[in-house]
């Protein structure tokens, strides 16, 4: 009994702490001066409650590997030429390999020495042909492959974050899943999901290529160094065009992109290059005056204006039949840079804001009604003890809310279900104790002794029963994604708080009750 005072102080402290964290979640308190002084900013609501988008994006590593090998092959060829070692243009092979053909076998040593400088590739096999040519099959160094995958994923996350930032979403959550080459994106409270997805998913690989007008795109096989592409005309029809494969200038030199308006008030995107890009642009336009320059985004020609003169100053523009919104989105992706590899949407969950509000209302209403029924039942069934149970039950809910806010956990719809379930389960601890006390009373113990005995016998049972639920919850958390994790968190939190309230706090109330009563008085339980 001596420790009663201390137990009351501890309980009150916990209660205050819970209140301090819980209160900012209530709508009336957030903006007020009281809300400012309290710690935390209330409970985070999950996407299913406030609406928004959840995306799982898969980064196409195979393309990234293939591109990297192709680039390396070109680099090798360039470097070899400087040493007057002549090799044919690298040919892509299945399995991220490239084949390089050395023209003179006398240069083998020289070429292989040169290859040693490229640590990212390994020689898989060499075959000598009759005519003195040597074929090299080059594969990717596994260590480099891993490193490249990591860098590609990081780069993709960075690019996506840039784009989303410019798109203007508050509190986006972007995280990578290294093991599976996936990226998770959560955008709360967005009203136009399709547009966000378009912006995120665009590879935005910008290239400037020269149109080869000497070849008729409609017939025949293209000569090497040429490729076929399509251009979307103003009337929306697609027209084939032949381009020179080499892209002398790409989007990596773009420093800024914004929407401008032309004479007819039609929107277009104007680009600025950095100094190197500006030099390149000047050179290309100088060398190709009179020709058409195709502006290619993700393999599609947006516009192909005639180069009238050498253009200096590092400015270019992309025209096309855009709406203002399309032009703005294009500017965003160009400004934010291109994705290092194509991405695909593996999983998409979009919840409209109205459903979110409805879910909250339904969830909270059913929680309140369920709780009210339980509260009434407990008082009817257990009398005074029921009042104790009800008190700690309310305290329990308060602590769960406070705990959720304090740990920065996210409340989801399954989370609300978790709370509702804890209400049911929290009653369990009380019932176990009360039934035990009743048993002890029937054996003829006094109220005080029965309370003592009931609590001590019930505590271990409650502990055992709850540990198993916590085990299940931990596993749920381990494997689960968003909403399921939310459920696991509330369940765990609920079990901890219900043990505290049912064993520790309710005992205080009982002890206070027993203290003020005559020794032989009957107990209301």
């Amino acid at each position, binding site marked *: 009994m001596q420790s009663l005072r201390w137990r009351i102080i501890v309980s009150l402290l916990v209660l205050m702490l819970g209140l301090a964290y819980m209160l900012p979640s209530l709508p009336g308190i957030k903006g007020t001066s009281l809300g400012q002084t309290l710690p935390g900013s209330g409970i985070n609501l999950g996407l299913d409650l406030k609406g928004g988008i959840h995306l799982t994006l898969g980064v196409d590593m195979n393309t990234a590997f293939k591109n990297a090998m192709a680039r390396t092959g070109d680099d090798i060829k360039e470097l070899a030429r400087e040493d007057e070692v002549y090799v044919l243009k690298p040919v892509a092979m299945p399995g991220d390999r490239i084949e390089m053909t050395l023209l003179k076998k006398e240069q083998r040593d020289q070429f292989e020495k040169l290859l040693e400088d490229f640590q990212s590739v390994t020689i898989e096999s060499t075959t000598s042909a009759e005519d003195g040519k040597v074929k090299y099959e080059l594969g990717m160094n596994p260590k480099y492959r891993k490193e490249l995958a990591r860098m590609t994923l990081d780069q993709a996350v960075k690019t996506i974050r840039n784009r989303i930032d410019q798109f203007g979403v508050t509190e986006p959550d972007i995280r990578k899943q290294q093991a599976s080459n996936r990226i998770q994106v959560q955008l709360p409270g967005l009203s136009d999901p399709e547009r966000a997805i378009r912006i995120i998913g665009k590879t935005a690989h910008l290239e400037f290529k020269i149109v080869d007008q000497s070849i008729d795109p409609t017939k025949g096989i293209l000569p090497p160094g040429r490729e076929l592409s399509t251009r979307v005309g103003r009337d929306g029809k697609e027209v084939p065009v032949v381009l020179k494969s080499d892209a002398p200038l790409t989007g990596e030199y773009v420093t800024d992109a914004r929407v401008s308006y032309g004479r007819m008030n039609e929107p277009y995107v104007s680009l600025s290059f950095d100094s190197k890009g500006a030099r390149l642009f000047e050179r290309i336009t100088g060398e190709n005056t009179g020709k058409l320059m195709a502006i290619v985004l993700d393999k599609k020609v947006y516009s192909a204006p005639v180069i009238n003169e050498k253009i200096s100053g590092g400015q270019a523009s992309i025209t096309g039949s855009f709406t203002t919104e399309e032009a703005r989105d294009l500017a965003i992706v160009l400004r934010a840079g291109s994705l290092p590899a194509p991405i695909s949407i593996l999983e998409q969950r979009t919840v409209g804001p109205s459903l979110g509000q409805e879910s909250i209302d339904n969830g909270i209403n059913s929680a309140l009604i369920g709780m009210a*029924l339980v509260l009434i039942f407990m008082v009817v069934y257990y009398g005074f003890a029921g009042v104790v149970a009800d008190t700690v039950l309310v305290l329990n809910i308060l602590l769960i809310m406070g705990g959720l806010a304090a740990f920065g956990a996210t409340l989801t719809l399954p989370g609300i279900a978790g709370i509702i379930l804890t209400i049911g389960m929290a009653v369990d601890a009380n*019932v176990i104790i009360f039934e035990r006390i009743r048993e002890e009373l029937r054996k003829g113990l006094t109220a005080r002794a029965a309370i003592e005995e009931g609590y001590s016998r019930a505590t271990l049972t409650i502990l055992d029963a709850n540990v198993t639920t916590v085990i299940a919850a931990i596993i749920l958390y381990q494997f*689960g994604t968003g909403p399921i994790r939310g459920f696991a968190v509330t369940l765990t939190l609920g079990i901890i708080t219900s043990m505290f309230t049912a064993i520790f706090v309710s005992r205080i109330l009982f002890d206070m009750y027993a203290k003020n009563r005559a020794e032989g008085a009957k107990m209301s339980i």
Partner: protein
Amino acid sequence: MGLQIIKPDTKIDFIGFRKIAFLISALVILMGLGSLVMQGGPKYGIDFAGGMIVQIKTEKQVDVETVKESLADVELPGLVVQRLGLEDDSEFLIRTSSSEVSSGEVRDMLSTALDSGLGKGGFEVQRLEMVGPKVGKDLRTKALEAMFFAVLLIAIYISGRFEQRWTAAAVMATGLFAGQYALALTGMDMAWLIVGMLAITLGLCWYLKLNYALGAVVALVHDVTITVGIFSILGKEFDLTIIAALLTIIGYSLNDTIIVFDRIRENLIGSKGKGEFKSIINTSVNQTLSRTLLTSGTTLLVVLCLYVLGGGVIHDFALALLIGIFVGTYSSIFVASPVLLGFGPTPPEVDEEPEAA
């Protein structure tokens, strides 16, 4: 003293009912399994099978047929329309097995069709979910893994905690991990892997005489199988939230079983090993009966509120919980204890009193 639903001197011969109970359980399990076999396995929701769902809410109350008719011309593979929640919620779930068509296109196709069928602006897209086939498969594997590890950890915990035989529990854990590794090497499907692992768990429990764990795990498998079976009979789909519900059921069912077992153990210690085991079990079940019924009652009450008032999104989740809690309560009385009886009590090695707290 307040109300009492169960008289203190109740002496129901629960053990005597065990044959009937086993028969009922076997029947329900067989029906569930039969339904699963007939449907060629569980009906996976888009979380596991991949595909797309669009949830719409209509302005006016319409019936499913109207929505179906207006979508008759939409060409999407496996297009299904279902009502979500209760009759007057006016919420429908449109499902397609395709995850190839972009969500924007699907949205457009549905909008055009529904605009002509229900009148322009007569509906609102509330939710759109798309899961690619690869992610679906990953989620399925992960969910099964989670269920398995839950059972594993719980079996180990019970063995250690109840019989003070942490060594045996450790042996079991090692055996299980070795077994899992060996089975994984054969490259079999995750579902069969789980079945194999459960067999190993039960075998190990039996061999090591971890009878409490055996009883609990049998009850647990019983509950999950029945819930899954009933879900299959009702034609409900399995998705991530149902897995969450199943794991909750596992936790709940154990909770119930453990409280009965705790009492059995306590009474065994009290009787110093004398007295017939059967009557000790009966006494223990009777002693905990009012608690079992009260807790199940209040929990069911709350889950019922969730089921009726919680809205379409958690409807099936609540249904799974309703079934699971009911079955879990039944199994802790009629399944777990008889299993314990069947394999006999384990004499407590160390006389550790639960009164230590």
